[in-house]
């Protein structure tokens, strides 16, 4: 076997010859060594083991470019801090987010809320609860919304996209018509439409509403990727070798279709958090005020924005920073995984 086959499982368009071997050398070498060395062509391939090899080296190649990108580090640090905050939130929050500790200084009639004071750095909210503790614990629910909405959207899109892209024919037609109909409704309208179906809006209904919107997006992306590979040489080679359809789809086509999907998923986390906030703003968010969520806090604060802008600015600031973090990470991943930048 010659040069052509060495690039087979990784789709020839993306890789230059010898990359699989280069990755192997990289793995054997110590951390950080030999990053720029060009590999020699001529590695035999086309076994499943080599598919894994190419996957590793694809990530390695991307990582090599990522780790010198400041944008990536800013995004990664923001997300790391956010996740850390969400994990340790119950231990570092000074007060119970549901307890109306400052209710004595709060008056609906006079439109007054508790000011910042010792032990309460940001003061209270309209119900006399500690705003600082609510912000800290809000990170948990917000992370849940972002991650689960993305995972559900991804799973749905994966099923539809693989059905359409792998089989083609009438499966493709049916799936894509469904996707067309879903895409014909502007995304937020679709999310609203789903959210209003729930009698008692809660975190789960919000997650479902914002995740369904993402299903057609992922489905379309995956289908496009898989269609492009159906006619490619490495799939043809696998078929010629007598590999059955399922392994071709799941071990050859799917892994090679994933990089744009990963990028999209990172960006969707940000979109989901923002969409959830929009639902809260329209009164369709979680009504469970004992477990705060940033979007919900922002929605609650909307009536008081003229008199108490801080109530809105803090949760909004948190949402913006986190959304920015995921956007930066997604964009830098896109740059790093883009075959055009591989040189």
């Amino acid at each position, binding site marked *: 076997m010659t040069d052509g086959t060495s690039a087979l499982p990784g789709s020839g368009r993306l890789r230059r010859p010898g990359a699989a071997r280069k990755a192997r050398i990289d793995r054997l070498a110590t951390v950080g060594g030999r990053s720029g060395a060009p590999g020699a062509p001529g590695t035999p391939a086309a076994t499943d083991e080599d598919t894994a090899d190419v996957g590793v080296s694809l990530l390695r190649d991307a990582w090599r470019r990522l780790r010198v990108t400041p944008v990536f580090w800013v995004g990664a640090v923001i997300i790391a801090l956010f996740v850390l905050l969400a994990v340790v939130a119950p231990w570092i929050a000074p007060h119970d987010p549901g307890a109306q500790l400052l209710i004595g200084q709060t008056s609906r009639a006079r439109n007054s809320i508790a000011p910042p004071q010792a032990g309460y750095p940001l003061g209270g909210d309209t119900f006399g609860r500690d705003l600082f503790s609510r912000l800290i614990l809000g990170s948990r629910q917000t992370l849940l919304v972002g991650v689960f909405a993305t995972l559900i959207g991804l799973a749905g899109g994966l099923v539809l996209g693989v059905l359409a892209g792998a089989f083609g024919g009438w499966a493709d037609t049916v799936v894509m018509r469904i996707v067309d109909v879903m895409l014909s409704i502007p995304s937020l309208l679709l999310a609203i439409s789903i959210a209003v179906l729930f009698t008692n809006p809660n975190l789960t209904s919000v997650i479902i509403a914002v995740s369904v919107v993402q299903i057609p997006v992922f489905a379309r992306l995956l289908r496009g990727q898989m269609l492009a590979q159906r006619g490619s040489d490495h799939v043809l080679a696998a078929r010629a070798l007598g590999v059955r359809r399922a392994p071709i789809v799941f071990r050859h086509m799917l892994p090679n279709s994933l990089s744009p999907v990963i990028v999209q998923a990172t960006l969707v986390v*940000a979109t989901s958090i923002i969409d959830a906030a929009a639902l809260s703003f329209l009164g369709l968010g979680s009504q469970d005020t004992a477990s705060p969520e940033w979007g919900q806090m922002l929605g609650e604060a909307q009536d008081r924005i003229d008199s108490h802008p801080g109530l809105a600015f803090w949760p909004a600031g948190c949402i913006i920073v986190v959304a920015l973090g995921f956007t930066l990470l997604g964009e830098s991943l896109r740059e790093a995984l883009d075959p055009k930048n591989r040189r």
Partner: protein
Amino acid sequence: MLRYTVRRLLQLVLVLVVLSLLLFLWLRSLPGGPVTAMLGDRSTPDKRAELTSVLGLDQPLMVQYGKFLGRVAHGNFGQSTGVAPGDSAIGVFADRFPATVELAIGALLFALVFGIPLGYLAARRRGGWLDNAGVVTSLLGVAVPVFFLAFLLKYIFAVKLGWLPPSGRQSPDIDATRVTGFFVLDGLLTREWDASWDAVKHLILPSIALGTIPFAVIFRITRSSVLDVQNEDFIRTAEAKGLTNRTIRSRHILRNALLPVVTVTGLQVGALLAGAVLTEKVFAFPGLGEALSIAFTKKDYPVLQVLILASATTFVLVNMLVDLSYAVIDPRIRTS
């Protein structure tokens, strides 16, 4: 070209039929329902039964859907029950349509007028301060929730500084003649300049709020597209031929870079329709988006049907126009 257009139109019809069925089933599965919404929780069963039969909600679903389709064919979507009780649903749509179109045009103008030139300049001076500032702004623009940006603009420029009006389409003390329903256009047609100017002032803040995401997207796509194109071989050829910089920029770079911009602009129309729900609510702007948020809370089924069908139709139609406009911009597509 013609065959393609016809095929796309047929596809549109299919999408709309499926959509209308889904929409119909969805409306019926909403909790509460219009009777509760109109009469309140404590109504007597008699009253409820009466209203149910008046609205035709007691018949089998298929019959209701059949009647619904028949009415739709005649342009009769029933009467509004919540947004403007008693008015026809299509009338509510017609009343508010011009407002949202004005807002959407304002937002798109903002996005295009700033997005394309800035994106172009950023790409020409890659790494310069304009490039960096533009990239940061566009990243922030996507990260800020639309309604929060709307609040912020309203809070700063309307409440604190008082430069622009905080809400509505036109000041109530202006006695403007209505011709088309498009307030800015009306003022121009009737030569009531102050009415036009007042309407424009009411449009500025909502347009910026609504146009920020399209701006961010258009800026980035213009920038990356110009970056791609200016490294192409044909640009080097043009330079080698000794063409002036101006010709190269306008005829070679910009024209080729605009194709992805057109696609993305078309896709933004859907985002505009959705964003209008949030922006119009913040600015109490009496357009379709505001009607939609009222219709949701008051369970105004007929109005909801019209609004969702209309926004879906607009979205699909615009995307079709975008596809067709490729042929105009890019002769290579025309021949294939």
